């Protein structure tokens, strides 16, 4: 890739990071949401 190799690698690496982040964030949030909802329903049951 000649003299532009470092620019190309940085651009593609950044693209990969952005794509990976956008998969990881909702998957992690899914776990958080489910844990929070489990707590929510448990609290509801205890208050009855």
């Amino acid at each position: 890739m000649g003299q532009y190799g470092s620019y190309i690698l940085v651009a593609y690496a950044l693209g990969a990071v952005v794509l990976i982040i956008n998969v990881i964030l909702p998957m992690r949030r899914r776990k958080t949401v489910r844990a929070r909802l489990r707590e929510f329903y448990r609290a509801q049951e205890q208050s009855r």
Partner: protein
Amino acid sequence: MNIYKYSSPKAFYPLAGKLIPWFAVLTALLLGAGLYQGLFVAPPDYQQGESVRIMFVHVPAAWMSMFIYVLMAGAGAAGLIWNAKLSEIFARSCAPIGAWFTFLALVTGSIWGKPMWGTWWAWDARITSELILLFLYLGFMALQASIDDPKRAARAAAILALVGVVNIPIIHFSVEWWNTLHQPASVSRIGRPRIHISLLIPLLLMAIAFTTYFVTVVLLRIRNEILERERHTSWVAALIRGNA
């Protein structure tokens, strides 16, 4: 088949779960083909040399940044007009993905600009209007986060998104309306694209891959939003208790 039933979060949630693996596989295949074509098959450009390969990330990211914004504003409008909960959820789920694509378009453009223009940044009409798009996305998310009631938050953010739509034609036509450092359109011209087919193929493959990728991640986000928004319903309670 009645497709309108899928406008209900309860019906859409399992459908999204079924669609995600298909779009994920399609994305992986298209991304693999696009990267192979872009990095190993496409020849260097006669003017830009090897740096043209940055375009295979930069241009699809810029297209996605505008496409997602239009979808987000359209969903916001549908939420305002028809009071459709799923539209509000869709608009909210689009915003962070659109913001990331805008960020990627700006930074890869900057990385390309340094060797080609001799500068990382220029206050050029195309680049500045794209930066405004990033601020619109951030404003949309900030506005939603600042209002506790999801219904009111969705309505306020939808109005902001609709006002911001005016920026999309400005981004697109900025290179024609003003004398900019950024080059004019070479693919989306009416008539024949100026770009050679050997460069057009990886560009389009990457653009389609980014689109299917967007569908995959927006569905992931929509499922999370549905669970949060529908937590008072019996079906979400049953779903969560069933998996506890």
